[in-house]
């Protein structure tokens, strides 16, 4: 057996076969490498093209710019930056505990056989197109919340967040943030679930063997182990919320003021929303202005995602080494 296989191998290897083999391999691996490099180039090109197109918006004289109308770019964009950060922050505060709860439920509480199905149900939330979330948020969810906002205003109006006159349509920054919270649940849940499942079984069993209840086991074994994973899951969710366009565009009316109030009819709005609203009719420097706003959004979300992924990848290496 060995003689028959080694025989032809040794006679063939100095012949023409290896050269042919190498050419096919070279072409194929070259294509594969090229595809990988295209992705890196695309990412770099996004930054370069946005910067190039954004520069005209920073010109000192903006009287001819139909969006800036004489303001400086920074004073125009600041309220939208505030709105983006504020709405995403609220969404994160609402969604993070719920996402951790769902992830725990699927990984440690639900019957093993159901866990897969339940995970799929949560993934369905991610499959719903954002414009449908926007429609639902603006036409169904917002009217539902009107009595709730009224109640908040009457009973908790002394907190500045809920002061003023509550909106009669329900189209407020809090509604937008609630819709955003629902939209970022799936990604946060997915990441948390993954790290919860990575908890060493021995740690869990040791805790249970010492007489811990299930919650004590979770608190002592699972949560400390998963802390960095939960942080990065939350940051990925934040990244999604920062860049989400349609839900906010449909729910909020574009006033672009700065206020922390959650339930008033006058609301701040976000960068992606203002781009989507103004872009179709924008021309000349107006387009550049909106692209400059998009560049800010890109930098912020890139940084958030970069840090989140960095935490995840550092962790993966760490747990892989164990």
């Amino acid at each position: 057996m060995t003689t028959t296989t080694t025989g032809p191998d040794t006679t063939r290897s100095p012949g023409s076969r290896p050269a042919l083999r190498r050419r096919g391999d070279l072409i194929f691996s070259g294509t594969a490498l090229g595809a990988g490099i295209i992705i890196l180039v695309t990412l770099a090109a996004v930054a370069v093209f946005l910067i190039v197109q954004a520069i005209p918006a920073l010109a000192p004289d903006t009287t001819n710019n139909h969006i800036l109308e004489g303001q400086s770019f920074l004073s125009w964009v600041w309220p939208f930056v505030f709105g983006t950060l504020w709405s995403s922050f609220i969404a994160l505060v609402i969604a993070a505990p719920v996402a951790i709860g769902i992830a725990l439920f699927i990984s440690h509480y639900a019957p093993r056989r159901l866990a897969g199905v339940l995970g799929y149900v949560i993934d369905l939330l991610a499959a719903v197109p954002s414009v449908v979330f926007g429609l639902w948020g603006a036409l169904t969810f917002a009217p539902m919340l009107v009595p709730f906002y009224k109640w908040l205003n009457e009973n908790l109006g002394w907190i500045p967040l809920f002061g003023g006159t509550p909106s009669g349509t329900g189209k407020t920054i809090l509604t937008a943030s609630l819709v955003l919270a629902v939209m970022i649940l799936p990604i946060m849940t997915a990441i948390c679930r993954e790290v919860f499942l990575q908890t060493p079984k021995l740690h869990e069993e040791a805790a249970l063997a010492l007489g811990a209840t299930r919650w004590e086991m979770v608190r002592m074994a699972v949560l400390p182990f998963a802390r960095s994973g939960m942080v990065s899951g939350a940051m990925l969710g934040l990244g999604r919320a920062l860049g989400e366009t349609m839900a906010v565009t449909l729910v909020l009316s574009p006033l672009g003021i700065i206020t922390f109030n959650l339930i008033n009819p006058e609301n701040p709005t976000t960068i992606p929303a203002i781009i989507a609203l103004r872009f179709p009719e924008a021309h000349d420097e107006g387009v550049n202005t909106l692209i400059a706003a998009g560049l800010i959004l890109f930098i912020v979300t890139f940084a958030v995602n970069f840090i989140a992924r960095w935490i995840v990848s550092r962790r993966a290496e760490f747990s892989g080494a164990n």
Partner: protein
Amino acid sequence: MTATLTPAPVATTTHSTSAGHLPKWAPWALLLVAFVISGTIFAFMNAGGDPADFNIALTLVVGLVFYIILIFVISSVIESRRHAVDRLMTALVSGAFVVALLPLISLLYTVVVNGLMRFDGEFFSFSMRNIVGEGGGAVHAIWGTLLITLGATIISVPIGLMTSIYLVEYGEGRRLARGITFLVDVMTGIPSIVAGLFIYSVFALIVGPGTRMGIMGSLALSVLMIPVVVRGSEELLRIVPNELREAAYALGVPKWLTIIKVVLPTAIAGITTSIMLAISRVIGETAPLLLTVGVVQGMNLNMFSGQMATLPVFSYMQAKYPGIPVDAYLERAWAAALTLIVIVMVLNLLARIIAKVFAPKINGR
């Protein structure tokens, strides 16, 4: 109460715990009691009103709150404080799941109910050309969506698949491969509107400002789709057992043929699944198409000239800028949303079925 119960376990050695235990059915019974209480309260508040006004979601939420309070109090009285906290957390964690389901159910229900009003033959056979007010349809938008998504798929799949082949087969352990994996992950977080702005800027520099056409939409969607395809197929190529590759190498098959003839066919079902999931992710994208493809009232099947209508943008425009009568516009928006949801769900379902039917080749070993 606890004081009277604690001597019991000491006396009878069979009970090893320090306190009594709630029977297994107790949480369920309490849950039922909580819902009955909450249901009664809301039924009284709604008394004399329209039964349709009965607020199911609020009833559920209030019922859950009642349950959480009940189980905590009863458990801390009968069992120990530690068990009470455990039961409280179990209730909260399960409650989180239910709370997440409510918006999903509400959303699907509203979309189906409102969408069915105009989910008719006219909607699927007419465009919006020369239509003001009632009537009209979205056939132009459906074609636009299909063409643009097809274009995005044709661009993304080869690039995404080849990248994942590089990552798994050639780049193992190399710094470039690790960099690509990392940046692909970061790329999945790029806001969709930024992808639209990027493609718009590229064409503004090359073709001229204000260019809008179908292929731009395909390219913008590709920016969003490629990372998803890469991550999905990378995972599946990785689970192809190494023995298969080694067997092929031992037979003298070159590496590239091994990949094409052995590795890819083994993983093809899973890769198809991940591609379909990626399509379902981008088919509903609105913002990039709004910026790059624009919107038009009539049919345009030319990807390389003129604006095109797409379902998500159609839905958005009808809802955001309704004319008179408003309801006609909103109904069209909902019908378009329902069409989108149906497409996405069918894609998802097909993907899962393909994965289920063809995948166990590897797991069955």
